[in-house]
């Protein structure tokens, strides 16, 4: 066992010196390899942290949201439904929500206007999401001027800005009081946008949803887990698009690696011949080349992953953020929480190191089975 380990150590020593002796060739390969790992790891790390971030923020959201439908479209909720839904067994609390969308032609962006349930802003005040504040160049104490759908001008005083840690889902948010909301949208007084139900027991959520569907057939209950699943699918889809694009780059790398390995120089072939002539087996040469590839792969993998980690968690994934996050104009500007998933690392390792190893093994094997007497002629 000891001799076996020592033998591998000798082969590894030789492999490292072999890498160092041809810096030009190996450095180019290392750079391309690192870049590929960096791109793939950045995509995976960023998407994973987006999902996690959204899940953390939505963890506080209500278990059930009930919307009314008319001809299959979202319709305003009559206020008397609130009383009927609040009486259902399992529902501990119910309240109506007021929210809507507003297109601001000044910055060509859509805002979400929402009346918070607790501590709504005083009449004439608004609280802005950081995306809106950035887009309009507003700070606390400034005035936000909007022209309503009926063409009336409104002016709101910015009372506060939302905290940056909610930016991923609240970048485009404007919080305002109920009276301002109803006036701005000319919203009927006996209507809500939708109704929220609190169901403390998770196993009752689906049952409550079924009861709602029976009691109020013109409504649609939306479960929190469905929203989370939608986010998950959305980010998963975006990740998929980027990975499909990167597959081309990965394929190009495999061809590049094959070309590099197949194009063993005359000097390298001669070296393999000498090693065999002085007593190395074909297996020793293959093992030596394996260590060479392993050293290169691991260095590229670690460097690429580390760079991706810095890119995603310290520079907020500057390169990919617009594609992966979405938002047409109001890009959320948030710093994802550092998070590494072991399975994801293993998957990435497999998809980068394995193709390289397969691409290089055949040409190296062909060189390694050269007759050792070549060096005598």
């Amino acid at each position, binding site marked *: 066992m000891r*001799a*076996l380990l*020592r*033998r591998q150590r*000798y*082969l590894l020593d*030789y492999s490292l*010196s072999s890498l160092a*002796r041809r810096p030009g060739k190996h450095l180019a390969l290392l750079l391309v390899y690192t870049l590929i790992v960096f791109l793939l790891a950045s995509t995976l790390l960023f998407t994973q942290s987006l999902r996690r971030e959204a899940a953390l923020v939505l963890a506080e959201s209500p278990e059930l949201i009930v919307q009314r439908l008319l001809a299959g479209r979202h319709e305003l909720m009559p206020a008397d439904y609130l009383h009927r839904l609040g009486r259902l067994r399992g529902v501990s609390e119910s309240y109506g929500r007021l929210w809507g969308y507003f297109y601001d032609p000044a910055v060509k962006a859509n805002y979400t206007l929402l009346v918070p349930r607790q501590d709504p802003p005083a009449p004439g005040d608004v609280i802005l999401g950081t995306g809106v504040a950035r887009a309009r160049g507003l700070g606390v104490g400034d005035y936000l001027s909007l022209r309503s759908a009926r063409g009336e001008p409104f002016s709101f005083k910015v009372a506060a800005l939302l905290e940056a840690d909610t930016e991923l889902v609240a970048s485009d948010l404007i919080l305002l009081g109920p009276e301002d909301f109803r006036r701005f949208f000319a919203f009927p007084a006996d209507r809500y946008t939708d109704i929220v139900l609190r169901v403390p027991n998770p196993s009752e959520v689906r049952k409550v949803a079924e009861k709602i569907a029976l009691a109020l057939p013109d409504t649609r209950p939306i479960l929190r887990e469905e929203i989370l699943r939608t986010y998950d699918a959305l980010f998963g889809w975006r990740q998929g698009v980027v990975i499909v694009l990167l597959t081309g780059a990965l394929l190009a790398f495999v061809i590049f690696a094959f070309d590099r390995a197949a194009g063993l120089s005359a*000097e390298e072939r*001669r*070296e393999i011949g*000498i*090693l*065999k*002539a*002085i*007593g*190395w*087996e*074909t*297996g*020793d040469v293959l093992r030596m080349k394996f260590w060479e590839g392993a050293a290169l792969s691991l260095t590229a993998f670690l460097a690429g992953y580390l760079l991706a980690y810095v890119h995603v968690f310290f520079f907020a994934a500057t390169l990919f953020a617009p594609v992966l996050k979405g938002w047409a104009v109001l890009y959320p500007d948030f710093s994802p929480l550092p998070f590494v998933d072991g399975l994801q690392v293993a998957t990435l390792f497999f998809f980068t190191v394995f193709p390289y190893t397969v691409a290089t093994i055949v040409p190296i094997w062909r060189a390694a089975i050269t*007759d*050792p*007497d070549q*060096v*005598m*002629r």
Partner: protein
Amino acid sequence: MIRLAQVSKVFNQGRHNEVRAVRDLSLELDTRGITVFKGPSGSGKTSLLAMIGCLSRPTSGRIHLEGRLISNLPERFMTAVRRDTFGFIFQRFNLIRGLTVLENVMLPAYPLAPAPSTLRDRALDLLRQFHLAERANNQAEWLSGGEAQRTAICRALINRPRILIADEPTANLDSQLSRELLALIGDLADQGKGVLISSHDPLVFDHARVSRVVELRDGRLA
């Protein structure tokens, strides 16, 4: 004793460029003393040494080493015989560029995996014996012809082989260096090593320490 029975070596067999390097050669060689294979270029000397040294297999015929058939062994066993029994000194030295003299000398022992300190001490001993100790950490490509040849001898001796095989060892040396080399080879023969040399250099085959000269021509004994 090395015994060759009707050994032939054909390159590119069945093709338009077929070459019969060795033809039905039968021979017995002592594994002690210095044996020189002489003959003009293309006479089959190198091919014969390559087959004896387990670097290649004969196309037909058999080679026995101390009674053991070695010419039809699988690659792995053939490599083991080559590594344990023979040490090679090549015409062009075949040192690996970029490695130090010490690393070049230690290379054949890597697959045997001796303790690193033991291997290093053994290599340094050899370098001292061949007056190369101060060159141990120099790159192989910086050596003069004579130094490179002596480094190649140290490398050939690192696994303590019983037989040394030297292919045209004086081809790249001047007369003075050739004489020095032959003296060194003579010393090794005195220490009990068998030495097989291929050469068409009279300095080699006329040397007083040579115990036997085998002359080849067109792949046959002349």
